[in-house]
């Protein structure tokens, strides 16, 4: 090709690097060279540092706090306690779940690691020395770390501030440590179906407390400019606009005077959605001192005190006919929320979307009841898509299916296939009130079973069991199956809001005169690669190469309002906003093209990167030419410029799904496992960037591996965190991570502008039951029904031991 040969259609498509193209991530050049710009890289003249005195006790009265010695440490400028914050009414703050939380210990502490005092100093070292020098006298109180014990009549009263309050943000409270009861579905009909059933399986499924442990911990820099009255807040925020609004409501500073900036974020996973005491204290300290104040957690603080995930005790009953057709599902959850209810669930959903717990199955009648409970543990319940509870729901149903298969003496793959919602049933109304948008589960399932030679694996497993019984091997083989259905993309304003803020998202596009563009969104990437993939959506929609589109997020002074990035909502919501804004650009471009080509608007059509005259493709105007004309040519009846904004309120959630199969070898003597094969088929609808999807899947599966096989936030009976460092908290490295085979089917979402459903969390949701089911399956032949995660060495050993497999 030379300059005179016009590019072919295919060449023009390739040049755009639009949807479907495995475009390399534009972010990686700076990340892989250590050139990212994270909160801790923000350095301002005169900046001070804050650090917390934290409670060593899980439950204690704070008798006194003596700050004199700390104030004498060279470099220490101030020590804030609840007494200092009280006059500003900032010693407590509202949580995103409608509860309130202490910013600094107000009379008592409720969990180990709770913030007690905030030391401000000229450098980090002085601040740490100041923290050591603060003398706090505590008087210990009885501790409850078990949510069932917390609900006993004589249990210690944790939240004295709620004394006498018989109802909370989500209705009635029946006990001093009870937060809410949330119910969905028809309990009477469910009980009846289960009562009349031929086969019933019952099990308690515990999804333990864990933590996403992002590489970058939480932190912020607050800078109050007393001259212009503006507060700038850099922080590790997954939802910068929400932080701005909350900061304004709390501080009384008008919202236009607050600028929140999320720079590069080193992983979030929900850990960075909430508002932490560190942010409030840093803002106050900056206002008091007139200097910028930085606060960055260390790893132990991050693990001990910031948003955890899970801690759900799920009691299930599932019933079926003798042939294995499911007739009913009953689920009751005892939800351990820790000391404060600091979840980030949509207001009407105090247990998130746990009601997706009917999973991929056509279950005629179901009931879900959730009791939220206070205990002496850290608040949070936001991470790993925890507030949406989809992960818990998927684990619950995928365990219940396995238990039912045991009860029916049936193959678990066959049981699933018997009960899948059929392709022709979509849009499908679930018994617990959701409308599943689209799916083709049988096709995905068959593809997955064939890919791993499922029947062959089962034969090998049977042979292995025989060999084990004859004493020829000490290793068992487990085949872990999962077919999960997610619910993501929160969400329609009619039923989804956080603190009253509707969960729409937004995109604003400006096309520059020379045909490149900038687009800003209300979301914020934490590693998902938005700068790469959103540009691809726009490239396909507008016809400008992705490489010529800058994506900008995270600065509330420039980005349009949005609810941020978590819960796999960016593509379903902001991605849709991008497509819709792109279409507005295209509509105007069409008018301009028609004018330039001297034909009627309807006589031109969009073709990859240009508008062509219908039937005369040699007559065209490229988007580049149109952009130039938009700014430089007077066009009657058309305003100059080429810009668009879209605020997208999704009509429904999206329902990605997938089929995962894990093949695992287990050494019954040491409890050591080896993952021989992991096959992951994801259907996330239209695929924007296959390579980015694969990256997301690998990352999420590795998180799932960690959660299922060892990661936990464990407490002892007096509330000490036993897993507060990376020595005991399992974070897999390349060494522990197996090889993954990823695959896909494509069932677009019918209501999403580009048919995309979101994939960020699917592997975490589907991976955990796949790993866990593999462990359970290995021992099925020896009578195992249920054993709680994490399946670390000693717990697997314990299974074998209890089944009598050790001599």
């Amino acid at each position, binding site marked *: 090709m030379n300059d005179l040969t016009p590019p072919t259609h295919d060449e023009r498509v390739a040049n755009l690097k639009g949807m479907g193209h495995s475009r390399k991530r534009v972010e990686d050049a700076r990340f892989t060279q250590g050139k990212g710009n994270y909160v801790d890289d923000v350095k301002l003249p005169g900046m001070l540092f804050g650090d917390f005195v934290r409670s060593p006790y899980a439950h204690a009265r704070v008798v006194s706090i003596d700050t004199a010695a700390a104030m004498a440490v060279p470099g220490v400028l101030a020590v804030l306690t609840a007494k200092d914050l009280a006059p500003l009414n900032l010693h407590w703050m509202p949580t995103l779940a409608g509860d309130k939380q202490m910013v600094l210990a107000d009379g008592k502490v409720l969990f180990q690691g709770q913030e007690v005092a905030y030391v401000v100093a000229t450098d980090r070292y002085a601040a740490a020395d100041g923290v050591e020098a603060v003398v706090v006298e505590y008087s210990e109180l009885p501790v409850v770390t078990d949510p069932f014990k917390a609900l006993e009549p004589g249990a210690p009263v944790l939240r004295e501030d709620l004394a006498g309050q018989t109802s909370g943000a989500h209705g009635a409270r029946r006990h001093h440590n009870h937060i809410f009861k949330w119910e969905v579905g028809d309990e009477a009909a469910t009980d009846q179906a289960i009562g009349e059933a031929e086969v019933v399986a019952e099990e308690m499924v515990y999804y333990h407390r864990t933590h996403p442990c992002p590489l970058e911990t939480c932190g912020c820099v607050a800078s109050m400019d007393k001259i212009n009255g503006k507060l700038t807040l850099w922080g590790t925020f997954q939802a910068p606009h929400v932080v701005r609004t909350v900061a304004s409501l709390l501080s009384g500073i008008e919202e236009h005077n607050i600028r929140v900036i999320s720079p590069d974020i080193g992983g979030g996973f929900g850990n960075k959605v909430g508002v932490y005491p560190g942010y409030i204290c840093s803002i106050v300290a900056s206002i008091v001192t007139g200097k910028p104040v930085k606060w960055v957690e260390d790893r132990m603080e991050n693990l001990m005190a910031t948003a955890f995930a899970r801690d759900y005790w799920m009691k299930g009953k599932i019933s079926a006919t003798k042939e294995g057709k499911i007739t009913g599902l009953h689920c009751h959850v005892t939800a351990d929320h820790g000391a404060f209810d600091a979840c980030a669930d949509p207001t009407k959903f105090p247990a998130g979307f746990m009601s997706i717990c009917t999973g991929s199955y056509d279950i005629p009648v179901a009931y879900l009841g959730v009791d939220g409970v206070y205990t002496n543990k850290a608040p949070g319940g936001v991470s790993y898509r925890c507030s949406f509870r989809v992960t818990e729901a998927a684990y619950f149903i995928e365990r219940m299916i396995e238990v039912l298969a045991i009860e029916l003496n049936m193959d678990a793959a066959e049981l699933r296939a018997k009960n899948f919602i059929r392709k022709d049933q979509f849009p499908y109304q679930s018994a617990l009130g959701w409308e599943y948008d689209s799916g083709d589960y049988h096709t995905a399932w068959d593809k997955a079973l064939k890919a791993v030679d499922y029947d062959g694996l089962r034969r090998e497993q049977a042979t292995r069991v025989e060999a084990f019984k004859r004493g020829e091997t000490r290793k068992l083989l487990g085949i872990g199956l999962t077919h999960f259905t997610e619910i993501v993309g929160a969400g329609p304003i009619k039923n989804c809001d956080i603190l009253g803020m509707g969960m729409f998202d937004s995109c604003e596009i400006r096309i520059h005169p020379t045909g490149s563009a900038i687009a800003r969104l209300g979301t914020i990437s934490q590693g998902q690669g938005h700068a790469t993939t959103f540009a691809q959506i726009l490239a396909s929609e507008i016809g400008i190469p992705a490489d010529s589109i800058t994506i900008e997020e995270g600065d509330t002074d420039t980005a349009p309002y949005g609810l941020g990035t978590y819960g796999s909502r960016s593509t379903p919501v902001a991605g849709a906003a991008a497509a819709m804004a792109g279409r507005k650009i295209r509509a105007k471009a069409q008018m301009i093209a028609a004018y330039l080509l001297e034909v009627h608007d309807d006589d031109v059509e969009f073709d990859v990167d240009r508008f062509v005259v219908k039937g005369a493709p040699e007559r065209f105007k490229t988007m580049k030419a149109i952009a130039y004309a938009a700014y430089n040519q007077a066009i009657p009846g058309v305003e100059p410029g080429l810009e668009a904004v879209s605020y997208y309120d999704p009509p429904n959630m999206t329902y990605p799904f997938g089929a995962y199969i894990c093949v695992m070898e287990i050494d019954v003597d040491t409890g050591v496992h080896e993952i021989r094969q992991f096959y992951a088929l994801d259907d996330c609808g239209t695929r924007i960037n296959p390579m980015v999807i694969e990256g997301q899947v690998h990352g999420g599966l590795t998180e799932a591996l960690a959660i299922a096989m060892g990661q936990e936030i464990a407490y002892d009976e007096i509330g000490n965190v036993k*897993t507060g460092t990376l020595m005991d908290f399992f974070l897999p490295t390349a060494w522990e991570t197996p090889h993954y085979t990823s695959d896909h089917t494509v069932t677009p979402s019918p209501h999403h502008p580009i048919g995309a459903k979101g994939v960020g969390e699917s592997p975490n949701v589907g991976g955990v039951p796949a790993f866990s089911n593999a462990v359970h399956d290995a021992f099925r032949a020896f009578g195992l029904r249920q054993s709680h995660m994490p399946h670390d060495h000693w717990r697997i*050993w314990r299974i074998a*031991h209890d089944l009598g497999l050790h001599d």
Partner: protein
Amino acid sequence: MIPAAFEYHRPKDVGGVIALLQQHGDEARVVAGGHSLIPMMKLRMTDVQHLVDLQDVAGLGGIQVAGEQITIGAMVTQHMLINNADLTEAAPILKEAALQIADPQVRYMGTIGGNVANGDPGNDMPALMLCLGATYTLTGPNGTRKVAARDFYEAAYVTVREDSELLTQLTFAAPKGGYAYEKQKRKIGDYATAAAAVQIAREGGLCVAASVSMTNLSDVPVWSKAAGAALVGTDCGPAAIRAAVDAALKDINPTEDNRGPVEFKRHVAKTVIGRAIARAWSRS
């Protein structure tokens, strides 16, 4: 995770180190690779007011393999142990064990002297030195003395080394026969749930000498004389291994931690020791 303030010293010779240790008493500590000590300082679990860095001290490096005798300087890193061809030839168990310590980043910094002097029952090198019958050279204000590794450890973090003494080198005879260092850990960078070092010498079909030691199964590294004795004169078949394992289990006293309860650790120890013996025998 920020240590308290401390004074930093960087002497050039052993004499300078000893003088500083004498001057500051228990307020002073030497730092070698820092990968055990610095985390403790950052957690403020160890109070060190004078940190004496050994990096510039002459005469603490080097690996010498001279005939039957092997000498390793205290400041030799785990990385160097892995990459020294002469050492691997003469005592391959060092490489096998060192490769199971932490990760490459830690091994570039961590030294054998620090590892054996630390007194942490989780460290891997002490059990290895017990297995090999190594001798440590300690230099202090009153000169130099030699202590058998098997007599060095008294309790967790308590050794016979005086505060003012420096461990300068380790010596041992080149081992004969087959070897194995078998370690179970939860993940990369973790200390052992249970680990065993075994050296076995064979003549014809019979074991003529055996040494068995264990890591992280008591508050000190454990050398089980009885386990070794149980193997000598046998064909190291299943019955002999069982007898040796039973003997070794009598010498340990594991405690419960996040790695698991005592019963589990004893079971893993049994498995790991058995596997180490079988592997060492197969290589003998």
